[in-house]
Structure formats: C-alpha cells, structure tokens
C-alpha cells in the first residue's frame, strides 16, 4: 500500500500493543524523512523475561553475523523508507515462513545485509497483550530461527567477513518506565528440558558434535535444582552454531532440527532466569552483552563449521565469559 501510494516512509507497529503512543509514529518516521535512514528499528525497555528469543538467539546472532548492534531486531515495530519498501516487494519470500513469525527478522536482516542505513528509536516501554499459553512455541522458534538460518545461507558470502559489530544510532529521549511482571514456571521448564533430552537425543545427534551432545546430556542428567542449573554461554553458542551448520548441510532434516530446538531453548531461558532473578535491568543488559561477545568471539567456529570442516575442534569458553560465569556462580552460592 505504501508503495502504491508513493509514500516516502512507512511505519509498521504490532497490533497487540498496549503502550503505544502517538509519539511512536513520529519516532519511527522522522529518522527516515529527515535523517535519511532507510530502516528504523525499535529500542524499548522490556521486562527482563520478555523477549527471550530476542535476548538468547536473534539479537546476539544478528549482531555477530552482520556486525550491527540492533537491540530489538524482531521488535515488531519499524520505520522503513520507500527504497527499502521497493526492495522488500521485489523479493519472492512471501509464501515461506518469512510471511509468518519470520517477517521481522527478514526485514531487519535485509536492511543490515544490503547496506541500507539503519538506526534505532527509543519508544519507551513495550507492553503487549499476554501471549496465549497454548500458542505454539515450537512453531514460533521454527519460523524465527528458521528464517535466521535461511538468511544465513542467502548471505553467506557476506557474514563470514564481518569481524566486529558497531552500534546503530539511537534516536529519542531515554527514560525509565515501569513494566508488568512476568511469571515464569522454572520447574516445568527444567522438566521439559530433561524430557526433551531423553526423547530427542537422536535428533540432536544429527546436528551436534559428539562432545557438545555429551555436555548437553550431562547437563540434563544433573539434579534439576532451580538454584544450580546453568547452561553456559559457550555451550549455548556452540549449540546454535552447530544447528545452523546442520540446517545448511541437511536440507531434508531442517524441520526436525528446528522443532527439536524447543527443549534446548527452554533450558537456556531457565538458566537465564535463574542467573538474573536477583539482578536489576542494567545488570541484565550487561549479562546479555556478555552473551553477545561470546557469540562474536566464537564466530570463527561457525565459519569453520559452515565451510564443512568436520575436523574443527569446538573452542573453549572465551576467557571473559568464564571469569564472569564463575563470579555469577559464586554470587548465587553466597545468596
């Protein structure tokens, strides 16, 4: 419609928002009209347990792959220029998973990978309707992560050469906001992970290196104690990188691999919740930043796997991550 009307800029917002204000439209459109940006990503305050797919997977991977620090790559609220609209319309992805949960990461990745000018706008709090508990998490993961991996294949001449990430400009005045609490059922998440490890081992073996699979199985066999469960950053990064490589080399097993990620993702979220339950928003952001650096430092491992180098040894944990993880464990024990 924007293309038909000849609009210079277009703002897209989620339909279930409760915190949207008229200023959001200005904040999403103004950088396009007056500062020459093509893509305006949102920047919000969210509850530390809201947006876990973003925090655990999409943000760190997008940052490591394409070298741009876009904090909310699948926020659901965007501003886009006419040039970028034309580019989106010229593509033929509308019958794939992109047209469902993958649409946001598709828009962001194209903007980042094809050298469109990208910035972020601070919109305040993101409050939206509670997700239907019956909503299919595995379908969402399948489509979002599947879109990330599919776009990796499309742009695999680009991202192996990206070495560092740089921040995207942020517009808008930042202020603190109150957020709705989010209830998390840890015991159920840990049970789901353990059950998944028992049932899906043969599927995980299609993607994971033996040593990585062994570490996951050892973790699953530990007593599911809410105080001590910890899925290390480097293990999580290795899991995702090995799944990405398997997605590339095993086209007929892609659906199985993506859907089998669900228990692993739930384990990661449980670990994150346990680590951060006594931390404030700033400390949680530091923790996520640490995860992003782990993704970036282990990128050579992804590049080797992507090239089909079966002999590459999994790297050890980055030094900084190991030190801070140790500090995190000690502070939990003291508490």
């Amino acid at each position, binding site marked *: 419609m924007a293309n038909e009307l000849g609009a210079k800029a277009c703002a897209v917002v989620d339909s279930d928002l409760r915190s949207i204000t008229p200023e959001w439209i200005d904040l999403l459109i103004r950088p396009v009209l007056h500062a020459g940006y093509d893509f305006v990503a949102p920047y919000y305050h969210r509850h530390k347990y809201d947006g876990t797919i973003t925090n655990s997977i999409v943000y760190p991977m997008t940052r490591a792959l394409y070298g741009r620090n876009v904090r909310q790559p699948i926020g659901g609220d965007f501003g886009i220029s006419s040039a970028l609209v034309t580019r989106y319309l010229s593509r033929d992805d509308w019958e794939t998973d992109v047209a469902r949960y993958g649409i946001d990461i598709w828009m962001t990745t194209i903007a980042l990978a094809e050298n469109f000018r990208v910035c972020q706008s601070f919109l305040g709090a993101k409050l939206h309707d509670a997700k239907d508990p019956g909503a*299919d998490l595995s379908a969402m993961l399948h489509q979002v992560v599947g879109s990330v991996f599919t776009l990796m294949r499309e742009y695999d001449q680009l991202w192996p050469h990206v070495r560092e990430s740089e921040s995207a400009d942020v517009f808008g005045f930042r202020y603190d906001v109150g957020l709705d609490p989010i209830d998390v059922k840890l015991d159920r998440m840990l049970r789901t992970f353990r059950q998944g490890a028992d049932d899906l081992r043969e599927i995980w073996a299609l993607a994971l290196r033996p040593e990585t699979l062994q570490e996951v199985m050892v973790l699953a066999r530990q007593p599911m104690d809410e105080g001590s469960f910890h899925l290390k950053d480097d293990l999580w990064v290795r899991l995702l990188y090995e799944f990405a490589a398997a997605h590339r080399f095993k086209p007929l097993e892609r659906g199985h691999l993506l859907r089998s990620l669900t*228990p692993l993702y739930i384990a990661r979220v449980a670990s994150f919740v346990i680590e951060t339950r006594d931390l404030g928003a700033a400390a949680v952001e530091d923790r996520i930043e640490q995860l992003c650096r782990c993704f970036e430092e282990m990128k050579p491992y992804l590049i080797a796997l992507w090239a089909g180098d079966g002999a590459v040894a999994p790297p050890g944990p980055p030094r900084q991550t190991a030190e801070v993880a140790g500090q995190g464990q000690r502070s939990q024990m003291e508490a």
Partner: protein
Amino acid sequence: MIQTLREVLEKALERLSSQIVTYIPPLLVGMAILAAAVLLARIVRLLFSKAFKGAGADKFLRESGFAAFLPGSVRSGVAPVVVGAVYWLIPLLGALTAVNVFDTRLTSQIVEGTILLFPKLIAAGAILLVGFWLAQFLGRSILVWACNEEIPRPRRLAAAVRVAVVFVAVVVAADMLDFAERGFFSAFIIFAGGAVLTCGLALGLGARDSVHRWLGRNSVTREEEKQLLNHV
C-alpha cells in the same frame, strides 16, 4: 554276445558323438563370450573408476539421510560401489548371452526369467529403501511433535509409526516380486482396517458431546426461525 556288446558300445559312442557335435560348439562359443565379457568388464572398470568420483551422489546420500541405511562401505563412498556394480553386471550379461547360445527350452527359460526378474528386483529394492527412509523421516516428525506437545511415550509412538511404514513398504515390495502377495496384502488389510476402526472409535467417542451440542444448537435455531415467521 560280443556282437551285442559291440552294438551297444557303437550306439553309445554314436550318441556321445552326436551330443558332442551338438553341444561342444555352443559351449566353446559361450566360454569365448564369457571371457570377452570379463575382459570388457575390467576395461570398463578401469575407465569408470577414473571418470566417476561420485561426489554428487555422496552429497545426496549424506544430506538426504539415505546414507544411514546403507552398509559402511557404501556410506564412505558411492563411487567404488557403482564401479563394482558395473564390473559385475557385464560378466552377468555375458553369462546370460553364453547360456542363450545353447538355444534349448531350459536355457531360454533361465534367460527369460532372469531378464524379467532383474528390473523387479531393482524396483523392490528401491521401494524398500524409500520405505525405510520414509519410516525414519515420519518417525522423527512424530517424535519431535509428540515431545513438544508433551504427549506421553513419544518414542513408542514414533516406533509404531516406523513399523507401520516399513510394513507397508514390505507389502508393496512383495507385491512387486509376486512373493506371498496374498499373505502380506491380507495382513495389510487387517492392520489398516484396525487402524481406521480405532481412529473412528476414538473420534466418535471423543466428539460425542460436540455433536450433541451442535445438534442442540441447530434445533434451537430452527425453532427461532419458525417463531420469526409466525407473524407472516
């Protein structure tokens, strides 16, 4: 007595020489054909092993998951297997041609039977291979779905699906080879019929209340419509 013995011997020698005259030439020709076939097979093997590396086939087997069903020697590389198959095919064809040279009813039947059976064997083998692959694929799909939906005993469900698909593949392959087709087919009918009956019962018993509510709603709607039209 000596005369009788001489006559018997002469008849036997005559028959023997007649058999020799009839069968030795085709035997010599057959052996020559077989020797030529073996020589040709060696030459073809040498040329084929240089020309065919099988990288594309190896990649397909790896990515599709077929490699999991194949013996270790095939899994590690398709090229030696293909070259070996071509090598043995040529002498086999040579042997059939050599047997056909004798031109008797028995030899014709042997050749005909072999030639007719060979494509069926290939087709049945392909059906079984595809069946095993499909069983694994569907089994994994069911396993992942059941695990994510927290359905109890997902591995047993997946195993049941695998067994069912393999069974269907065996029935089809047996039908292709005309091997115990009635037995396999009857077993398939019983199995499929039982599965449909089970699903029907489960759906019927489970949806009883929904059907009852739907019927009730429809009858209320008809009553309301009747009342609407009463004034006309």
